[in-house]
């Protein structure tokens, strides 16, 4: 029913004649008969807006929204300030294209410039791009950035998030980069193994802080080792954690990347999310993706433009180092609005709460017989092993029955838990109580 074509049949006929066509079919004279689809599409008939709404409401009911979520593993439920939602839903932001025409796109360009600046503050880097598809793609693009003629082997810690690893692997397979995993030891990168790697062909090392198991890596030592080999350190980081933890810049990393979803984006079954990417100044011209820069107009007034486009594919075509030509602009604005409204104080409180709640959760789980698998400091995720006689599925099923989404099962006996500022003490106590009851039953 709905087609959003405004012109009436009568107008269409008039326009058709005016443009010199005798019928609608004539418009498609260039399409040979044997290529045309000479039948109706096998699709349902169009629905009215009201029907579409009720149809998708029905579909939505087939999902279950857990009120209590203790799962992270790459996607995190945080508090989303009302300001953020109301800001990024403004029609002019939502319906604009990439700001090619700078004079009427200063709002978007400035918002990205502000985003870039905040990402630099957060990561301790000098330059940020306007964002890429997601954290995993950011890691893969960063790896590609580091490849040099004589340095074509990239090393990745085995303790990184599996999705990020998978995407890096795919990208590397595409452009012929050699990828080698560096094993983990007690939930952290094995520094001895890292140290033992050959200098030759060493392009870069990618590791996450905190890593997939929530553990905090000794990034200072890692940076030393990697730099000694002439390689670059790419640090994947959780942006919320940077509210209280040392930044990639503090550790001397060369490139910082990460999944920006925790900065104001809902879980949304995995997307749209946001990949942030920032680097030291020397790497600026190797950074892929859009970058916004400051300049002045002919009256000397400050203004912003897409810049450094010489790097990009529409100029360089097959000589470009990346094909990326969009960003996640609205997600970048979301992240900027989130960081602005939270401020340093708010971000620190979010980070502190995440860490505190995770530690409280871990202590309580320990009491319930779920011991932590790894030693050493962690941020807001950690892995437990189930008590004797209980399996991950048993525990998680029991929790689901009480509307709790428990941690991610890594296997039959290990679970990766996560807590954020959204989890109250009461909720944590309830969760542990449920587990205790299962253990006793």
């Amino acid at each position, binding site marked *: 029913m709905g087609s959003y074509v405004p012109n009436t049949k009568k107008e269409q006929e008039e326009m058709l004649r005016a443009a010199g066509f005798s019928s609608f079919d004539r418009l498609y004279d260039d399409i040979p008969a044997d290529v045309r689809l000479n039948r109706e599409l096998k699709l349902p008939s169009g629905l009215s807006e009201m029907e579409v709404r009720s149809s998708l409401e029905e579909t939505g009911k087939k999902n279950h929204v857990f009120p209590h979520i203790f799962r992270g593993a790459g996607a995190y439920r945080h508090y989303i300030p009302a300001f953020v939602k109301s800001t990024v839903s403004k029609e002019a932001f939502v319906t604009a294209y990439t700001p090619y025409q700078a004079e009427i796109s200063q709002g978007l360009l400035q918002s990205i410039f502000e985003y870039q600046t905040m990402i630099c503050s957060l990561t301790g880097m000098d330059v940020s791009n306007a964002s890429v598809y997601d954290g995993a793609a950011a890691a893969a693009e960063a790896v590609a950035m580091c490849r040099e003629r004589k340095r074509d082997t990239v090393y990745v810690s085995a303790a990184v998030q599996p999705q990020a690893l998978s995407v890096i692997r795919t990208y590397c397979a595409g452009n012929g980069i050699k990828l080698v995993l560096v094993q983990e030891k007690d939930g952290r990168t094995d520094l001895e193994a890292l140290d033992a790697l050959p200098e030759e062909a060493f392009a870069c090392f990618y590791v996450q802080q905190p890593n997939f198991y929530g553990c905090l890596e000794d990034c200072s030592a890692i940076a030393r080792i990697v730099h000694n080999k002439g390689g670059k350190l790419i640090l994947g980081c959780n942006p919320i954690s940077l509210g209280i933890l040392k930044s990639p810049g503090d550790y001397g990393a060369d490139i910082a990347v990460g999944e920006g979803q925790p900065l104001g984006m809902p*879980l949304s079954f995995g997307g749209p999310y946001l990949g942030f990417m920032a680097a030291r100044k020397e790497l600026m011209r190797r950074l892929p993706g859009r970058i916004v820069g400051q300049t002045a107009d002919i009256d000397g007034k400050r203004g912003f433009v897409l810049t450094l486009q010489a790097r990009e594919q*529409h100029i360089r075509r097959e000589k470009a180092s990346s094909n990326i030509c969009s960003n996640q602009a609205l997600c970048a604005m979301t992240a900027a609005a989130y960081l602005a409204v939270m401020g340093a104080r708010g971000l620190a409180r979010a980070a502190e709460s995440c860490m505190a709640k995770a530690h409280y959760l871990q202590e309580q789980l320990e009491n319930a017989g779920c011991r932590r698998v790894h030693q050493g400091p962690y941020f807001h995720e950690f892995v437990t092993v189930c008590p004797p006689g209980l399996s991950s599925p048993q525990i998680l099923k029991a929790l689901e029955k009480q509307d709790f989404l428990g941690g991610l099962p890594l296997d039959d006996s290990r679970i990766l838990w996560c807590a954020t500022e959204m989890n109250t003490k009461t909720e944590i106590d309830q969760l542990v109580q449920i587990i205790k009851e299962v253990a006793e039953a």
Partner: protein
Amino acid sequence: MKLIFELGTDGQGTDLLPECDVPKADPGPFARSSAVRLPQVSEVELSRHYAALARRAHGVSDGFYPLGSCTMKYSPKINEELASMREFTGIHPLQPEDSVQGCLEVLARCETMLCEITGMDSMSFQPAAGAHGEFTGLLLIRAYHKSRGDEQRRKIIVPDSAHGTNPASAAMAGYEVVNLPSGPDGCVDLDALKQAADEKTAGLMLTNPNTVGLFDRNILDITKIIHDAGGLCYYDGANMNAIMGIARPGDMGFDIVHLNLHKTFSTPHGGGGPGSGPVGCKASLSRFLPGFLPNPCGSRYSLKRPPNSIGDVKAFYGNFLVVLKAYAYLLELGKEGIPEAARNAVLNANYMMSLLKGHFQAAYDRPCMHEFVITLEQEKKTSGISAADIAKALLDHGIHPPTMYFPLIVQEALMIEPTETEPRETLEEAAKVMNQILDEAQKEPSTIHLQPLHTPVRRLDEVAAARRPIVCYEYPQE
């Protein structure tokens, strides 16, 4: 206007989170030594800041947006509303399958519908944008040849009229790019193609209608030449809006297609993203698709990774909420609305072209598909009026300029794509404005170079921006 960093003062801002109700954990040596430097601005000032930014932005809701190759059609409001339902936004991507059946239903049904429209057999929604889809498609081509032990195919043929992303994507996927010069009509030169296609050819990347807005009549010959040479044909779906429901890439002989849901299927662009660039393919290639696909399994769906998957190009299942909006759009238009939209996109483009005739020179003087290219080559030579001049002058009239200087095979190009959602009146007004601008510029060529006059900033110095890049605000020294 001020930057957000120039607002507020130390200590301002709002407290949004409660105090922590459990004991603090000490980060010890991992603690950062000083607070992150972020804005300290009250909510009222923040709200004014973003309101001012919005007033300095221009979306489809602010006026005509005939940006060629970008398909700036109207995005129905209902789709935004649906995509903000907590039943979709509140779902963790790693929840148990039973608890995400609604999401899987959206993915599965959207896949079915888009396969029908493209003539493909399966589709992955993992790619987040067109270029991402291209890269994915090329990896499929690679995986296909590799699976056959046919590893000497190192070349991808790309016409010189292609989107810049095509050669870049091919390079990223490890291919050598063979540039194919276009014929005088902007279409593929069959002889040149025959020469280029050989046992080293992995595949061809093409869009049809092509980037000058013309449908290549020889499409079946083209795809046959590639297939005969043992290559695969990749369809760049950027220009799908002209032909959906009318002709299908699958029926033209293409093996792989990417779509831009944020173009043809009306999901809004958000100032550059998030988009969605799903990749569809023929059955013979399905087993290589990336990510996890929803498989029907009785009355429910389960997620399965294709057996010879190229892996992942993005975490999880793509930009799900974007897919959801496109799905809603498909439900709204249905089998009647899809071809109707295409026909009207083509009609609007031809009508607009006819209105500009007599003033502007069409790059190819024949009926077009969803878009057409005009060239200021003559004007530039005779009176110095460039494509950019016309574009910048339009800004003062509240009209977003056409795409400038693309495709590269046309000099001083302006590429105009009105889309089907524009009423006749808008086309007529825009054509009148464009014709007037040209008339006035011809009378007094010097004035146009100074335009725009009424935008928040005037022409910006892009050269200076790139030469001494300032890409991050520097706080003043205290």
